[in-house]
């Protein structure tokens, strides 16, 4: 069975209101995760009796201020500190703010960097008479 994927769009301004609505409706906070696209996307996932709902906010870059939802869901502080340490996202008023010391990372905000351009294939030197199959 394929689980239905419910993605809803929202904005940083409306975020707290939407999240409060989920809390009042008895949803459990499943996770908060970010993705680096051209800018950034943040997904807030909720679950109630296996019904899975996602809120997505899109940001142009990681300096934009995002309100913390740790006032609504106390447990969100872990996810929000993680987002700050790995993506450098600017999340305001986290309940317990580690100020960038949640993960001990070698480089701050490493996940915000774009991946290097695709590597040129490892050189193969085909010699006459051998078949080289690439799958």
């Amino acid at each position, binding site marked *: 069975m394929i689980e239905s994927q419910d993605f809803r769009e929202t904005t940083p301004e409306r975020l707290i209101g939407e999240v409060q609505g989920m809390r009042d409706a008895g949803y459990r906070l499943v996770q908060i995760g970010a993705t680096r696209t051209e800018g950034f996307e943040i997904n807030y996932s909720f679950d109630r009796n296996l019904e899975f709902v996602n809120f997505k906010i899109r940001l142009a870059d990681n300096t934009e201020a995002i309100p913390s939802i740790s006032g609504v869901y106390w447990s969100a502080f872990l996810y929000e500190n993680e987002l700050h340490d790995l993506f450098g996202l600017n999340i305001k008023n986290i309940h317990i703010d580690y100020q960038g010391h949640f993960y001990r990372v070698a480089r701050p905000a490493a996940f915000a960097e774009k991946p290097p351009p695709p590597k040129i294939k490892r050189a193969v030197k085909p010699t006459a008479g051998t078949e080289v*199959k690439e799958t």
Partner: protein
Amino acid sequence: MPFFTISKTILRSLFGRPATLMYPAVPREYVEGSRGHIEIAVESCSFCSLCQRKCPTEALSVDRETKIWKIDRLRCIACNFCAEACPKKCLSMATGYSPAVTSPGETEEHHA
């Protein structure tokens, strides 16, 4: 009874066979299909380096000119991917661990 609930288990292991082996006096027997280390029948290898490209940990290196097939035993995760990919079927997964090496990055060489 809320006391001595474990006595049954203890008595059973007291009179049963020991759960451990007297290793190394009694060697461990590996079950068939246990993934231990990669073996190569280097005579049939065509040095096509397909295994090298397939290996997720880059543990293999194949040199076509000098006809040397090398494996870094410490990098290898015994995933069997190379053996599945090899067109000549000269790689195989054997049971048991490979012997210890004295420094990291030391490779084991097989010449044709």
